[in-house]
Each structure stands twice: as C-alpha cells, then as structure tokens.
C-alpha cells in the first residue's frame, strides 16, 4: 500500500516538474511580451498545483495529519496570477501598443489606457482613474 502511495506522490511531483520546465522554456521560446505572458500564467499552475497535491497526499496519507496550507497556496496563487498578468499586460500596452493595433471595444468608450472613464461613479468602480 505504501508503495502505491509513494508512486502516486512521485507521479504528481514529476508531472509538476515537467510542466514547470515547459513553462520556463516557453518564456525563452515565445517572441513577444504578450505571448510570453501565457507561458507562466498557465503552464506553471499545474506545475505548482502538482507539487501542492503531492504535498497534501504525503502529509495526509503518510504522516496522517491534514494540512490546509496547500489549499491556501492554491487560493493565493489563483488570486494573484491573473491580477499580475493583467497588470503586466496593461503596462505593456501603455508602453508598446498604439490604439490602432487593438480591436474596437464595440461600445462608445475606448480602452481604459487610452480613454477616460465616464464620470458617473457607479460604472467605473472597478477601474482606477489615471
């Protein structure tokens, strides 16, 4: 039984390692900032997730204690990764991309980096003013 568990844990760790490697390789291989943004925000979530699952399995099945830290790490990772990706993307657009390169927003206001928010307060709560 112990052997099965250990194989399962090792499998998680190896999968995680492979995905971490692919994510890092993506950073080198892809051409521009926006493409590179895809590699770490995705290929590494399974990378980190795999290590966390392995850690949970280890503590639960072998050490016999339930640990919530891994769930917390997952939660924080899923909260912070999209926010930082959005942040990097927005900075990149402001520095390198002109409004003409982007598709039309299909509403009367332009993209947030190039256009001011409407002045009524209810609609722009989620978007900081420049």
């Amino acid at each position, binding site marked *: 039984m112990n052997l099965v568990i250990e194989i399962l844990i090792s499998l998680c760790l190896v999968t995680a390692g492979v995905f971490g490697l692919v994510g890092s390789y993506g950073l080198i291989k892809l051409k521009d900032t926006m493409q590179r*943004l895809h590699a770490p925000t995705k*290929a590494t979530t399974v990378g980190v997730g795999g290590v966390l699952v392995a850690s949970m399995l280890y503590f639960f099945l072998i050490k016999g204690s339930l640990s919530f*830290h891994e769930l917390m790490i997952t939660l924080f990772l899923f909260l912070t990764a*999209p926010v930082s990706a959005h942040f990097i993307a927005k900075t990149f657009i402001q520095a390198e991309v002109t409004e003409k*390169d982007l*598709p039309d927003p299909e*509403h009367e206001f332009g993209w*947030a980096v190039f256009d001011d928010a409407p002045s009524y307060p209810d*609609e722009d709560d989620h978007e900081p003013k420049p």
Partner: protein
Amino acid sequence: MIKRLLPHPLFSLTLVVVWLMLVNKVTLGNVLLGSILGIIVPALTAPYWPGQPRVRSPLRVIEYMLVVLWDIVVANFHVAAIILFKRNKDIHSRWVTVPLDITSPEAITVLAGTITMTPGTVSSMLSADGRSILVHCLDCDDPNAVRDEIKNRYERRLEEIF
C-alpha cells in the same frame, strides 16, 4: 450599526477561516485573532469597496469552480502543446474584444481572472466604461469562436451567480 461594524460579513467570515487555515490549528486565541482581523480589514478597506455583492446561488459557485478547475488543467496541456510542438511562425496571436453583459465589478473581476487562467487567453484590459474586455489569444484563427466560448461557458454562469 452592524453595517458599519461589518460592511462585508461574508468577507469577514472568509478572513477568519483563511486565518485559521494559515495557522493550521483551531484554538481560542487563534479564533480571537482571526476575528479581530475579520473586523479590522473589512473596515479599513470599506471605502474602496462601497457596493455589496450579492451571491444568488452558492451551488452555482461550486459548479463554476469545478468547471474552471477542469479548464485550467486542460489549459495547461493546451498551452504546453503549443509551446513544445508549434513553430513560432505558426503561432497566430491576436487581440479579441469580448463585449460584456455583466455589470457588477465583482463578476467582471472573476470573469477576467477566469479568462487569464483558461486555454490560451489572457485578459489584458477593460474598456473605460467597463463594458468590454480585451483578451489576448496565444494561438487562434477564429476570434468569434473564442468570444462565443467565453460568453457561453463563463459569462452565462456568472450571470446566474451574481
């Protein structure tokens, strides 16, 4: 009174639970410390979060989380395959506009996060009035298909939740 003390009751509860999970044991002292955090943090951040989000059906939240979790796993394989097996000149990246029907800031935040975590897409910017979201697609030939998938798979579910 209770509204001033606890502007976001659910947020306070989450903070207490997260605190207990962080210290990993439930003692009276930890519950007390967690409760203090659960009161102070929402009170301090209340000016930045004036509205009160309503979650209509908690069961839908669980369904949504499972769908997203599954999609994240799929996304990883998808992106890994693109990185490993496609030559750079075959990767067609493009911008896609997704017009939004949801208006609640919380729902849009969740949607933007979901888009970033799922197959080949990163949410990059909102329009100034928050009615459209700009999505960068790693490898896509049909922007309409991407837009429709986001709208049908995630936005429709979020509409039912918020």
